[in-house]
């Protein structure tokens, strides 16, 4: 892997349509390595779709995605993914440790089962997210914040270089949110690139150093200080951002 590459993620001319109308239109996006980036935009703006398109989970109508200059299929091992919590059945018969170990399935490849090494990695990741006491807990008996942390631990043991996270702060309390942010910033300090779908405009400047404003089109993308401006926000959200005071 070329660590001196200038782009961790490079999206060019990306258009995605589920039905006739495009939900992402001609997106260009360059994410430099080692940033903590927030994707911000209203409901239905296409944030989840953008993440999925980068991961190759939805087929774009046009355009191209590169991770460190190579297509996603060649770079799977270095990409970690935290899906939106609501996309899985939390009543599935399994426990916390087992879910976290799923983060190693990609590295294990076909047929090989997780063993002692995977278990140790999973325990370390659970400690990082403060969930080590819950390792044998059935996953249906977790609060939403705990579920979110389990997903985070699963992504951590993927040991990726680029992380894509869909609303990791959804339904977590202030303490957990701080803990997660610290964790994400730690990842960035270690040279990882972290892309996070984020909804709380108030905390963007505190938590992130890059931001992408999205509403079907890419409105703006760049360092928070230059990009997170009231003009850009107005363009992203329409007139509905009165609560954002004097930015």
């Amino acid at each position, binding site marked *: 892997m070329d660590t001196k590459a200038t782009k961790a993620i490079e999206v060019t001319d990306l258009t995605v349509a589920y039905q006739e109308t495009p939900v992402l239109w001609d997106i260009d996006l360059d994410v430099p390595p080692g940033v903590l980036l927030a994707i911000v935009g209203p409901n239905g703006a296409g944030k989840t779709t953008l993440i999925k398109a980068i991961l190759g989970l939805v087929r774009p109508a046009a355009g191209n995605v590169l991770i460190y200059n190579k297509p996603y299929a060649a770079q799977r091992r270095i990409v970690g993914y935290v899906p939106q919590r609501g996309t*899985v059945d939390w009543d599935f018969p399994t*426990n916390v440790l087992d879910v976290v170990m*799923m983060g190693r399935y990609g590295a294990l490849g076909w047929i090989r089962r997780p063993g002692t090494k995977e278990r140790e990695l999973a325990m370390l990741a659970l400690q990082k997210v403060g969930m080590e006491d819950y390792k044998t807990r059935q996953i249906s008996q977790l609060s939403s914040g705990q579920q979110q942390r389990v997903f985070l631990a699963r992504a951590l043991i993927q040991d990726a270089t680029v992380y894509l996270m869909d609303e990791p702060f959804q339904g977590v309390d202030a303490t957990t949110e701080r803990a997660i942010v610290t964790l994400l910033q730690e990842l960035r300090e270690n040279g990882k690139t972290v892309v996070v779908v984020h909804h709380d405009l108030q905390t963007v400047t505190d938590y992130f150093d890059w931001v992408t404003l999205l509403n079907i089109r890419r409105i703006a993308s760049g360092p928070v200080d230059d990009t997170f401006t009231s003009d850009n926000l107005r363009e992203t959200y329409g007139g509905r951002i009165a609560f954002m005071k004097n930015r």
Partner: protein
Amino acid sequence: MEYLSLLLQNHYTLIIVSIGAALLGTVSGALGTYAVLRRQSLLGDAISHAALPGIAIAFMLTGTKTHLILIIGAAIAGWLGSLVILSIVRLTRIKYDSALALVLSTFFGFGLVLHTFIQRTGNANQAGLDKFLFGQAATMLKSDVLTIGILGGVALVLMLIFWKELKLLIFDEGFAASIGFPIRSLDFLLTSLLVIAIVIGLQAVGAVLMSAMLVAPAVAARQWTNRLSLMVIIAAAIGAFSGVIGTIISSVTTRIPTGPTIILCTTVIVGFSIVFAPNRGLLLNRIRQKKNRRIFKLATQKTVLGERIQ
């Protein structure tokens, strides 16, 4: 003496049928777990009904009633049916349940037409095809049991080999895709395993009741455990147990057909599990709630008293 050999002969049949039913129960119980967890319980129903025309066509083409050949016909048709359902969902805006109902009734109707046609043509060999409708376990032969054992064994071994992949597919498909597992192929594998589990049971249990063999043991098993591996084992055990008990009950009372008896046994176990299972059961939940309420009541009364004393 004559009586004794007759008895032995009867027992021989009973043993063969019991083994066959136990094998069927094991395979459909284990694989049914995946259908239930994937919320595809009805897919089993669609496959078993869609398999019917395959049996008729296999018979018309070959003129034999060899179990294996009819099973292959059933498998192709059942598998085609599930493929049509998936394609309808993917290519049109028709929802999953509607596509399912559509395919089920179309294939089943076509199967009935073919069966009637075969009967009308008066082929001397045709008798016995209708057992695929309601099942006739009592006519199971040693060779049938062997077929069930081999095909079912292959399905179970594949399930074990791809254990982790299938688990991830069902729990978190998006994540599985993101780390590079081919979702379509795994889906294909899982559907094929379900098709095998279904078609090997058609002769004994029948198209109409086969999906219950698949779904009921898994539903009961879910009540008793929070672990996938245990759920598969318990479901398989319930399936096997019901198979044997159902066979024995229907053999001592000559008038009751085996398939429905097996299903009734499973249903009793499901009912018992829903009420009495330790964690998810209705009864213990109710008792626990009552007990908690009493404890909390006591606790609050105590604090109230304590405050008064102070």
